[in-house]
């Protein structure tokens, strides 16, 4: 156990690096901001992770040329036991975009540094992998689309031949491709497995086929209160998580006090979301190993929860409940009764299902000692959520960085030390019942009062807000640097799968080929949440009906045909109306608004 108390780790950093840490400040409670020269980054990062036990979260590169004439790169670390975030920020001049990579010291930073290189051109010197990660195979070489000179809807010319070279297979192995359309979860991801007989000896991942320019939209087109609705579409399961994390990050940054009742409602919806997500996963796990009874029964049990969400929020999945400063609707007594009634039924049925499943030797045989991720590796790769907790790493954002009403609710962390797919299953089963308990407690304890804070001033520029929210898959992290055009200057987000996916290579090494799908499935991957950054798509050479150029041409023509999706085309001259579109009354008389109706009061 680490012995550092709240301030001790700060003191330790001070004594080790007295010259480099400048401008230490705590803008927002529990979020420490320090500026350091870029050369000192690896040393400080190594010390924080290896000596002080920090967990690497994410790095954020920001194009600050409009404001300060340079770029900013922030590395964010979480001190989970001390309940603090540490942001190490370096300034990088625009004409020398290089930083020293921390990946050799902190392997968890692998993808995020490659992402910064792709999207902003910040080169991590000394990074072991210089291949492209995010951008499509035919994207022009010297264009970094997250820089502020490019618009969100700019179309770049195709430049074939920029595809990242595949990792060479070791001598004597066979390459088995799994993807590019990942067959188990019907999502785009491509694993190339290097097989020695039936055993996996290595792997290579190429994903990010499904990019959406969400971060770009957030800092160039949408405004503060529109982003929660786009954020909730990042994921088809954990939408509430992302919109909640974004709103809380902005509230933190700008010092907006959310009413307590709104916090409780957020927690309530988050827990209900976790309940249906975990039941979904239990079903999916059964499906992956061919045990479809579990799939059918789990999803049958899940469906009343989805109906409940529709009843409570007005939509089955996209609740649209969060705004900056609170939530949009209250939960009345009738809705609370519905929640209690449905949960009572779900609890009984889920208990019956999991009771049967946990003693089922078929399941056990397929899950035990499969997809092993040791505690040491889990810490080194900074995995999050049930994957970490299944590997005996006791982290949970609800406890470590309490948000919404979790401080009041008191969450019990569920940890298992099996380090395999079975342990992850048990963690999720236990969390499911913990969530049911939390929902009941929230309903009982919820205080009265308003659900929306009063915001009567413009939000200030240049404030940083961080928020991590425990999704069903792990910690979703949002970073907001507030801007001055009624929108964030930079919005960075990390879905939990972004971090967990990096651990797959380590998890499937030495596995049988047949166990690979459930190993990957056991961390509940959500490929499409991970992919949120840029537009364009590439053809994957599977069925040669179109070449990638033809496909691209097709999609452009399609965009041009619909003027609303494209900024370059003309408005259509005729528009068809169908029977259910409200017919406008004919022009004249009635249709014109009366001139006197809306006179201002004298």
């Amino acid at each position, binding site marked *: 156990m680490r012995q550092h108390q709240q301030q001790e780790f700060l003191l330790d950093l001070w004594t080790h690096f007295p010259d480099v840490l400048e401008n230490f400040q705590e803008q927002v409670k529990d979020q420490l901001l320090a500026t350091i020269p870029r050369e000192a980054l690896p040393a400080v990062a190594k010390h924080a992770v290896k000596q002080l036990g920090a967990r690497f979260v994410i790095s954020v590169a920001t194009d600050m040329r409009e404001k300060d004439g340079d770029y900013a790169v922030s590395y964010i670390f979480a001190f989970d036991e001390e309940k603090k975030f540490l942001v190490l920020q370096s300034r990088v001049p625009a004409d020398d975009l290089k930083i020293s990579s921390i990946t050799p010291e902190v392997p968890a930073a692998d993808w995020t540094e490659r992402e910064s290189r792709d999207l902003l051109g910040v080169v991590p010197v000394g990074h072991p992998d210089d291949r492209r990660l995010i951008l499509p195979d035919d994207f022009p070489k010297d264009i970094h689309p997250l820089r502020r000179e490019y618009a969100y809807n700019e179309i770049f010319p195709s430049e074939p031949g920029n595809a990242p070279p595949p990792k060479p297979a070791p001598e004597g192995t066979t390459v088995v491709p799994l993807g590019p359309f990942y067959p188990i979860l019907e999502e785009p991801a491509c694993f190339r497995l290097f097989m020695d007989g039936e055993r996996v000896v290595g792997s290579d991942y190429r994903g990010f086929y499904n990019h959406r320019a969400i971060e770009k939209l957030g800092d160039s087109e949408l405004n503060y*209160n529109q982003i929660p609705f786009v954020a909730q579409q990042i994921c088809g399961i954990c939408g509430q998580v992302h919109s909640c994390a974004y709103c809380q990050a902005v509230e933190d940054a700008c010092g907006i006090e959310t009413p307590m009742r709104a916090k409780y409602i957020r927690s309530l919806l988050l827990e209900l979301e976790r309940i249906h997500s975990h039941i979904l996963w239990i079903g999916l796990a059964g499906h992956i190993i061919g045990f479809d009874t579990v799939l059918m029964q789990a999803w049958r049990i899940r469906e009343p929860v989805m109906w409940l969400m529709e009843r409570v929020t007005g939509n089955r999945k996209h609740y649209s409940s969060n705004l900056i400063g609170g939530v949009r609707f209250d939960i009345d007594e009738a809705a609370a009764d519905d929640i209690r009634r449905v949960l009572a039924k779900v609890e009984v049925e889920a208990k019956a299902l999991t009771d049967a499943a946990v003693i089922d030797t078929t399941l056990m045989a397929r899950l035990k000692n499969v997809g092993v991720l040791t505690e040491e590796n889990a810490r080194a790769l900074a995995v999050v959520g049930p994957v970490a907790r299944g590997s005996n790493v006791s982290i949970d954002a609800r406890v470590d960085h309490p948000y919404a009403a979790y401080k009041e609710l008191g969450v019990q962390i569920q940890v298992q030390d099996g380090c395999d797919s079975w342990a992850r299953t048990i963690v999720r089963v236990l969390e499911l019942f913990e969530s049911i308990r939390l929902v009941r407690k929230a309903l009982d304890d919820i205080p009265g009062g308003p659900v929306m804070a009063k915001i009567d001033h413009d939000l200030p520029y240049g404030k940083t807000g961080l928020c991590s929210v425990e999704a069903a898959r792990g910690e979703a992290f949002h970073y907001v640097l507030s801007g001055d055009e009624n929108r964030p200057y930079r919005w960075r987000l990390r879905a939990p799968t972004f971090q967990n996916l990096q651990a797959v290579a380590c998890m499937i090494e030495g596995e049988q080929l047949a166990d690979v799908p459930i190993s990957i499935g056991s961390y509940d991957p959500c490929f499409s949440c991970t992919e949120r950054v840029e537009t364009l798509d590439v053809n994957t050479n599977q069925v040669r009906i179109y070449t990638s150029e033809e496909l691209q041409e097709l999609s452009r023509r399609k965009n041009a045909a619909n003027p609303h999706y494209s900024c370059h085309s003309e408005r259509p001259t005729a528009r068809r109306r169908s029977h259910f579109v409200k017919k406008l009354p004919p022009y004249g008389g009635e249709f014109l608004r009366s001139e006197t109706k809306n006179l201002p009061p004298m």
Partner: protein
Amino acid sequence: MFKAKLKEAVLCLSAGRVTLKYPFAPSDVPPKFRGRIMFDAHKCIGCGGCANVCPPRCIVMEDMGEVTRITFYLERCIQCARCHEVCPEDAVWPTEQFETATPDKSDLTSDMTVWMSSCQRCGRCFESDNAIDKFRSKRWRGRGPGEANKHGIFPTKPPIYFEPPKQLVREEEDL
């Protein structure tokens, strides 16, 4: 092993029928359900608050001088009902309609044209309580009329200053 299978069998058998009769029987929606957006041109004052807050830009507003035209591209709608929330006149609201599938996207496009008198509008303009929802750029969502962003690109499409409204509505009627 046997016990687990027995439990699973009981679970499966006790479930009974769980599917719904829909589409052969109507499917009710819960009271708060947010379905397809409907609007009333008689109530609209043309303030553009709905266009300003709409996250997916399915509501587009065009300033044509004497008249304001508000177009709803409902194929983009995410059913958040923010437009209903900010509308000062209740001129736009979510209905219970959810069966909006169509082979032609343009079926989901509809618009209204509101005549704006030049000064009577003052004082009736949309003003939100919330500072970050304020309609700070009038008459064209996000920016002034016909103003490109800093990249020289229009938010959705270049604004067109229209022919007189009379002709415009006739064109709709022909179809």
